[in-house]
């Protein structure tokens, strides 16, 4: 969603790039890409698989936002045990006395802890913020497209 915040600059971007897998295109497989942008932390086995696939297919990988960079708010569950969490969510709510913890083989297995992306694959660029500002995203993307890499301006570095 934060990428959409770059507003009309998206048209400038579209002149230079082609989207592969994205929430807009809904393509399931990842093609060969120059730049991959990933948001969110690693919460389950599917997240890890998708991240590794992105790393294989993308020349440059960008971690976008607090969850991707340090696990963010979901990582606040990390000091609790997974069974306790599942019990709390699916068995302890009022009216859920007879509920079951989902156990469908199609569901990705949750990880014991939420991890940031750089703990699993190499990340080339980080755009911090919750969410990152449109200007921060724009500065990094235009920098990559122009083949220059320089640090984010101080005013664009925010952790909240």
């Amino acid at each position: 969603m934060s990428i959409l915040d770059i507003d009309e600059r998206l048209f400038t971007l579209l002149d230079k790039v082609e989207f592969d897998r994205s929430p807009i295109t809904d393509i399931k497989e990842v093609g060969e890409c120059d730049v991959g942008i990933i948001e969110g932390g690693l919460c389950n086995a599917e997240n890890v698989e998708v991240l590794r696939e992105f790393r294989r297919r993308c020349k440059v990988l960008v971690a976008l936002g607090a969850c991707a960079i340090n696990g963010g708010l979901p990582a606040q569950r990390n000091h609790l045990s997974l069974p306790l969490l599942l019990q709390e969510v699916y068995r302890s709510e009022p009216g859920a006395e007879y509920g079951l913890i989902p156990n469908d083989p199609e569901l990705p297995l949750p990880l014991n802890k939420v991890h940031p992306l750089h703990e699993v694959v190499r990340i080339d660029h980080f755009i911090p913020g919750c969410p990152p500002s449109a200007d921060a995203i724009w500065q990094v993307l235009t920098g990559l497209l122009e083949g220059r890499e320089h640090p984010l301006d101080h005013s664009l570095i925010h952790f909240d």
Partner: protein
Amino acid sequence: MSATFLLDGRAIPFSEGQTILQAAVAAGAYIPHLCFHPDFKPHGSCKVCTVKVGGRQSASCTTAAAAGAVVESDTPAINAERLALVQMLFVEGNHFCPSCEKSGDCKLQATACDLGMVSPHFDHFFPDRPVDASHPDLLLDFNRCILCSLCVRASRDVDGKNAFALAGRGLRTRLIVNSRTGRLVDSDVSAGDRAVHVCPVGVILPKRRGFSVPLGRRVFDLKPISAVADASAQIEER
């Protein structure tokens, strides 16, 4: 006060007994620091204020100022080491800025931004630390503690209560409360104590004050920490 030393080429006056950092802060010159506060005895623990004096690195908060000394601080090499120190502080605790009331007023966050930190780089510890919400006016969230000991020094030296202490060693070092139960409510800490206002991060927070200053208008939202002459007073007044 006639003697001076050179800090990155700028002459800094000092008086007998002052450390490099004390003199720099008094002169309005910025050397990044976290465990130092001009009102309290130096602790020398965080090492973020490390500078190079005469070719050797030392913590500027505990190194005596000397006439004619040549001090290097704002160099790419030293700032890179400071960045690594700050990144280690981030992964050793649980620092989730978006959910922290101190965001924008936090010296750890502001120092990290000033050093250009965009990620913590290292693997996170995600430690399991408690929250003590027992006190009617104060909240203690140990997840954010960087062991600067400012609350320890303020309680001992100003409040005369010895309400806080650092216990354990190495990775097991932790902040504890001096009370029969270990809980804040059973200590003699009160909301007006200096100790509860000096925390540079979001460990000791007053209750029922959330967002009295909106995000985006806090001290370090408006100016980088390197451009704020003495941020301590501005933040502690809140």
